[in-house]
């Protein structure tokens, strides 16, 4: 049974509803509040032309920005959440899955496979934030692990692009253990000397940050991306005070030595290409 047909990768994917913009010709920038012609934002890779704010974009749009056109071959599309705890809060987990599947056209919050960056082969996976906040359950953890294993087997760099609220509570311990599983796979990749590049986008928090996302040989963040272990609200509640301006933003992490660089969407592909070339000794 194949639920989800492969889609042609395009940066103006009409099914891309993860874009945080209302329907219509005009969009309002979430950062500077400017009303901008939607086409203009899209032409600019969904970056605000006024203030450089990076809109959240879908997994497939990300792949389109980074990979050579037509190079992506999707893997592991058949992985589907099994609701191991038969979890129900205000809604059944099964229903939440269904509505996210309908909304995104994806089976879960991660799209992965192999592709090429300036003709250099990579094993790559991308989070879909619009699918239950990009939360990591057993499917996402397994797909990430396979991205890393595929990189190890083929001796090609592994790339993971994160945007996630962390572990998926509805899978309880099954989701928690994905942190250990993915981190173990990185240990193996390191032993083989195969590079692993982690790209952090807005937002990357919780169990995702506290596992594979912060373990990149190279860690790249998009401008202004929120990156942290605990969410800002949890920290504010714990310490009972307001957080400083810019706290947990990409620029803050760079300043504190936690990431290698901040790269905007327009130069991301070029940067990856240069890094991958040199890391492979060419």
């Amino acid at each position, binding site marked *: 049974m194949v639920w989800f047909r492969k889609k042609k990768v395009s940066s103006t994917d009409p099914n891309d509803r993860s874009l945080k913009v209302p329907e219509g010709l005009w969009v309002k920038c979430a950062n500077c509040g400017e009303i901008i012609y939607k086409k203009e934002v899209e032409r600019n890779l969904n970056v605000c032309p006024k203030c450089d704010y990076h809109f959240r974009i879908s997994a497939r749009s990300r792949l389109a920005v980074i990979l050579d056109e037509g190079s992506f071959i999707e893997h592991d599309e058949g992985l589907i959440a099994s609701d191991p705890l038969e979890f129900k*809060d205000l809604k059944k987990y099964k229903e939440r899955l269904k509505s996210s599947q309908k909304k995104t056209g994806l089976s879960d919050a991660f799209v992965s496979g192999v592709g090429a960056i300036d003709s250099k082969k990579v094993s790559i996976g991308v989070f879909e934030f619009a699918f239950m906040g990009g939360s990591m359950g057993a499917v996402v953890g397994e797909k990430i692990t396979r991205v890393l294993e595929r990189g190890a087997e083929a001796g090609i760099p592994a790339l993971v692009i994160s945007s996630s609220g962390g*572990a998926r509570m509805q899978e309880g*311990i099954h989701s928690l253990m994905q942190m250990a599983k993915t981190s*173990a796979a990185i240990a193996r990749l390191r032993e083989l000397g195969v590079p692993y590049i982690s790209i952090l986008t807005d937002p990357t928090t919780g169990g995702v940050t506290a596992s594979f996302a912060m373990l990149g040989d190279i860690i790249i963040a998009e401008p202004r991306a929120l990156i942290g272990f605990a969410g800002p609200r949890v920290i504010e509640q714990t310490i009972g005070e307001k957080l400083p301006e810019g706290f947990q933003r990409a620029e803050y992490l760079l300043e504190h030595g936690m990431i290698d660089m901040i790269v905007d969407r327009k130069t991301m592909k070029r940067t990856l290409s240069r890094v991958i070339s040199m890391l492979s000794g060419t």
Partner: protein
Amino acid sequence: MTNKHPLDFEKPLVEIEKKIEDIKNSMPDGAPATDELKKLRRKAAKVKKDIFAKLTPYQVTQVARHRDRPYALDYIEAVFDDFVELHGDRLFGDDPAIVGGLARLDGEPVMVIGQQKGRTTKEKLFRNFGMPNPEGYRKALRLMHLAERSKIPVITLIDTPGAYPGIGAEERGQAEAIARNLREMAVLNTPIVSVVIGEGGSGGALALGVADRVMMLTYSTYSVISPEGCAAILYKDAAKADVAAKALKITAPDLAEMGFVDAVIEEPMGGAHTDPDKAARNLKASVLEALADIRTDSLGIVKNRYEKFRKLGSFAEDAE
């Protein structure tokens, strides 16, 4: 009375125990137990058994967090000999929320590491309620690497509400510290045994828990999020913690049944705090057994551990 601070659901037991206490106090020292006293004692035992045989997961959470529950240093004192505490991460500081050091277990040297909570208000603040900062995890990893080079096993005692969510913790890379432990523990070339002795709070617990054998005391919990946190986020009502605790399947028997925990270490009826010596004896026997068992693994420790964690997490897969 063995239980100085009974929990709400222990009330029926408390009443009987108080009667027993009153009768004993009215009797001269050394007088033989009356029939009434014997009857009450039998009744107390039965009521206790009835209560603890069907604790709800949220009641288990309360036992796991009990103020008198033995903490890591209590087990280190009771189970190990010759403990030499080692301090500091060599990078920033020493985190009192994680203790660790060399010790002997039945004569054999080991590295023992655990999250430590405090009992008095002052101790609680000093130990940061058992919520480690990055330097705690980095100290733990430093000690694990030392154990690896010294070819001695690592025993970890897990008991934390979670890694500390604070400004300094974020600034110094809480996420990186946890992640690094997960990666390094996965390939640490020496046996690792982990025991959840109280609260296994999410990634902050797992950062000491990538082990060859993961065990839990009967009334401990291990969860991706606290019942209260889950209730607030998913049920939009913090008072639904009992419902969330049940849904998350966080108790030792549930986790063992799903294959996430290798063994449940029997705790005294009523909780470890009602008979800490017995809890310590059981823990010691289980750790020794686990260590002996790990050494018979045929594939090699690291390979086995990798396979163990590689398998975790259920999903379905359709052929394409």
